[in-house]
């Protein structure tokens, strides 16, 4: 098994060495990047608050558990905390991020559920959002088969994520 803790330091080293060789004003670029990063707050916080509100209500009301238990009795082998993740991932990035936080809080970040949810979050992007945004930007009304293919890819990615977690961490 590769030691993944080397990935990020090596990446930073690689970027900085190239920047040094090409005489880039890296300090300036870094400051710019962080500045743009901070501005994300006004985009992320409102959207996440909306999603957190819905997800927390779902959990605290006990409705989430009722639904997840219902599904878990039919399909075994997948931790029931994972199901909200599977449903929200294709719909909204912020919603699935909120579910991810929820799983980290209730099950722990290094638990099987925590790792599985992290991998699912990384496995696909938000199909509905991307399709709506990109097609509406150029005025396309008939999206042909983009949605079914996108969702199929999501299912494939999520299934692979679950399989890999159970295989290597279970």
């Amino acid at each position, binding site marked *: 098994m590769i030691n*993944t803790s080397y990935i990020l330091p090596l990446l930073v080293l690689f970027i900085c060495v190239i920047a040094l060789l090409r005489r880039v004003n890296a300090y300036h670029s870094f400051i710019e990047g962080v500045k743009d990063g901070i501005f994300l707050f006004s985009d992320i916080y409102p959207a996440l608050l909306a999603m957190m509100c819905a997800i927390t209500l779902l959990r605290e009301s006990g409705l989430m558990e009722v639904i997840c238990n219902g599904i878990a009795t039919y399909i075994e082998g997948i931790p029931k905390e994972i199901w909200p993740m599977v449903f929200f991932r294709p719909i909204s990035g912020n919603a699935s991020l909120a579910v991810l936080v929820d799983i980290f809080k209730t099950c722990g970040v290094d638990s099987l559920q925590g790792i599985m949810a992290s991998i699912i979050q*990384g496995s696909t992007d938000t199909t509905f959002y991307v399709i709506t945004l990109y097609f509406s930007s150029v005025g396309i009304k008939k999206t042909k088969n983009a949605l079914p293919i996108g969702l199929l890819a999501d299912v494939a990615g999520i299934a692979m994520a679950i399989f890999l977690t159970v295989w290597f961490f279970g």
Partner: protein
Amino acid sequence: MNVIWLLIICITVLYCLCNGRVDVINAVFVSVGKETFDFVVPLLCVTAFWNGMLYIARDAKILAALEKLAHPILKRLFPDLKNDAETLGYVASNVIVNMVGLGSAATPMGLKAMQGMQQHNPHKEEASRSMVTFLVLNTAGVTLLSTTIIAMRSSFHSLDVTGFMPFAILSTCFASFVGLCVDRWWNYRD
């Protein structure tokens, strides 16, 4: 999205009212704002750091070099754009920037790529096959460096922040592979 969001809130509130658990709802309304703030701020601080690093990579032309590497593959994936270097360039930047986990920076390039593809589109209201391929590639989201998840895991003090990465990369590649295969089989049979 709007409808789903409203439905979730209405149903859960009604469910709580019927079960006589009004105090639960009130507690959520009071605490959810601060709870969200508490995880967005550390998350943002880590993301801001990676944003800085990736801007160095961009200015050092590392991203441009990766885009060049991706060109031959993309030419095969988008045969309709073979003669449009500009649009293909936007597609390449979008895919590469998505790969390094700068999703929000990738969107403007993606929109430019869509405009480029629309020029070649014979039916302006119907998606062309290049568009479908592009969107499948985007929704499968080939992300090699998921800065948000790394940030999230470190803000929850994970003992193994990057352990998920190889598996996430495998799954995301598998998702894209399946998506592209279905797209080929469905849209390019003739």
